[in-house]
């Protein structure tokens, strides 16, 4: 048992490190660009040098790299201060769905541009009345010649306003049970009739949008999977969502908490000397450590050419509530000044207040804590599904809140 790379992995890591060290964009290169421009510049650099989406097939813009090489690359890139955060959904969720369900021609047209960063993709699944119960979505698509006409509303779409394309699931037949009446498409986000409205979050940010569809046309050729098979296609996307969302980061961890507790006082003593503070920190440390070494076990499986076990599915379920609890406790440690949220006046430029206000969203995005717990119970522990009272009932006869 050790933490070392195999000789082959070590060679690959060295190559990645060297390329990163020589090619990270300089501040001059990035100076006049917004965050999308910066992300695009970095993505193109990687693509041109053969470091973009390396796990993908070469024909689609990748390098046919192994899973462990992808992990090593991700680790090394994460160590660098580089533009980030625009392509995750497209490359992490939309692309695997395209690879599984689109035609070769479509993949040749779209995937290399996704890998090079020339085009950005988003994902439109959730609706105001269907979140955890995703298959209850209501946005309609009606066949019209070689097209479908879309009417309805999607919500919680990350990056909708700067995306070129998006994937979406639509209701094509309301007369059959809910999972059977869905169909999956990809669509040009500039299509006439699409209107995007950013949602203001409790944190003050606006990372998500509502997307309204009014008589929007999409070609039948942009359907992925058969009519009525949309749920199955959506599962391809969701499986990849779980792999790519992670614990959501959040900007604070054991070390930031430890440093804060070393800095602020309780009864004229650093808070870190207080037994109750130490016990809390110990609990967060063992959680973080448990997640880290669970990740190492998955990496080992990849390194041995095996599939990782289900262990990694716990990372968001553990990480998100931990983030919220740490942020809450940080504000407590600051006592009255914990309430101040100001880049000048707050401790660490307001990092803890930001985490406090952002963490509720992380517990919900990509599957609520409760949905994640259901998934682990059913897929990992093999417990039976909940009894569903809408099972087998045509979608248009299922009772809804106000009907």
């Amino acid at each position: 048992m050790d933490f070392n790379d195999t000789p082959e992995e070590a060679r690959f890591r060295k190559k990645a490190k060297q390329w990163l060290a020589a090619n990270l964009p300089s501040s001059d290169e990035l100076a006049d660009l917004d965050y999308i421009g910066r992300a695009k510049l970095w993505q193109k650099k990687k693509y041109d040098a053969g470091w973009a989406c390396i796990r993908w097939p070469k024909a689609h813009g990748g390098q046919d790299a192994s899973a462990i090489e992808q992990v090593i690359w991700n680790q090394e890139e994460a160590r660098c201060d580089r533009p980030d955060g625009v392509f995750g959904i497209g490359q992490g969720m939309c692309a695997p769905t395209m690879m599984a369900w689109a035609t070769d021609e479509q993949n040749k047209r779209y995937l290399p541009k996704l890998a090079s960063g020339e085009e950005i993709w988003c994902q439109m699944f959730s609706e105001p009345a269907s979140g955890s119960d995703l298959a209850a979505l209501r946005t309609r698509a009606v066949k019209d010649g070689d097209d479908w006409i879309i009417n309805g509303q999607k919500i919680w779409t990350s990056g909708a306003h700067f995306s070129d394309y998006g994937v979406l699931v639509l209701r094509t037949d309301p007369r059959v049970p809910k999972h059977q009446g869905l169909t999956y498409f990809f669509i040009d986000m500039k299509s006439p009739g699409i209107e995007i409205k950013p949602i203001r979050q409790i944190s003050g940010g606006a990372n998500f949008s509502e997307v309204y569809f009014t008589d929007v046309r999409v070609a039948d050729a942009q359907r992925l999977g058969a009519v009525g098979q949309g749920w199955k296609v959506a599962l391809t996307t969701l499986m990849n969502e779980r792999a790519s969302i992670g614990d959501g980061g959040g900007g604070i961890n054991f070390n930031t908490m430890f440093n804060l507790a070393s800095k602020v006082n309780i009864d004229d003593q650093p808070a870190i000397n207080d037994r109750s503070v130490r016990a809390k920190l110990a609990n967060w440390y063992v959680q973080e450590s448990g997640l880290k070494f669970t990740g190492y076990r998955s990496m080992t499986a990849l390194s041995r050419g095996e599939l990782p076990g289900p262990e990694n599915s716990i990372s968001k379920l553990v990480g998100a509530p931990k983030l919220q609890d740490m942020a809450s406790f940080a504000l407590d440690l600051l006592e009255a000044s914990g309430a101040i949220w100001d880049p000048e006046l707050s401790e660490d430029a307001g990092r803890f207040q930001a985490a406090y206000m952002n963490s509720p969203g992380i517990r919900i995005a990509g599957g609520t804590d409760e949905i994640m717990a259901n998934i682990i119970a059913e897929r990992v522990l093999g417990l039976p599904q909940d009894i569903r009272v809408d099972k087998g009932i045509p979608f248009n006869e299922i009772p809804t809140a106000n009907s």
Partner: protein
Amino acid sequence: MNFEFSEEQNLLREQAQGFLADNCPTTLVRRVLESDAPCDAELWKKIIAMGWTATTIPEDYGGLGLSYLELSIIAEELGRALAPVPFSSSVYLATEALLLAGSEAQKQHWLPKLASGTAIGCYAVAESAGRLSPNSLSTTVSGMNITGEKIPVADGDLADFAIVLARATSHATGDGVSAYLVDLHQSSVTREGVPTIDPSRSHARIQFDESDAELLGVPGEGWSLLQKIADRAAVLFAWEQVGGADTALNMAKEYAMGRFAFGRPIATYQAIKHKLTTIYVKNTLARSNCYYGAWALSTNADELPVAAATARVSAIQAYYFAAKENIQTHGGMGFTWEFDCQLPYRRSKLLATNIGSEALWQEKLITAIENRQLA
């Protein structure tokens, strides 16, 4: 990255699981629980015959010279089976103490006996309610004669010798604490069993009345030796704990699948599913931390104090949670003597208190992290 057991080690696990499934069913654990027997003597003999007591003892002393990774696997499986044997006292504590601090003569004398199972060692440290400190020790040594009372001592009624922590009478407080090796077959040693929350494991009160003792390790350094022994034992205790926690999870899961309420298995209710998921999550984190502990122990890494405390804290939390929520999942049946839910519930708290509580190890963890940062 190679953070996993090897193929041979996994074979050892399979072999251990098969052996314990055949030789240590819960009916056997209950037999010890319900009798006055301190352990299951037959099972103990078979475990010795498997060579498990010899695992990490070097070949020069009659052992197998295997690594702590092999011992970790055995510990997890013994914990999973809730084995009613003095393995933890004799192997994780007494053997480790001798390996760490024994003189050549002491090792020559005791290690072959521990390996072959002809001697059982125990760890006589606790004295009274509350957390032990160098100042609170009341067992004293004058010359090489030890006097005082140790309670509870796991396997103290079975053991042939004890590792005892005591203070020289020449020192009033704090310093002057040393570890001693005491042969328990002396007329000046009296022992009696003490009832505990887990009678499937035996505990004793041991009284020393000017009994002969030998120094173990450096005089005056008993307290720091104790910390070193505890760090090593903590990793192995933690493996037993995650093994037991998995047993509790499986019991709860099996029952929830088969028990119907309101016309459906209770495993379909989210209140139960989420409970079982929380157990699974805690067990998984604890097990991954145990890997870290096993790695640190097997490589003698500087970060062993951090790794051991991390494994120990999460294993204590996981086992307690799994054991109590297993009873809860069973409802009233879980509270009956007839059901086995009591076994992990008893064992989880016993193992949690045996070598220092959750709070003690939380404190040790943060101290170890502070020390690591200073280093």
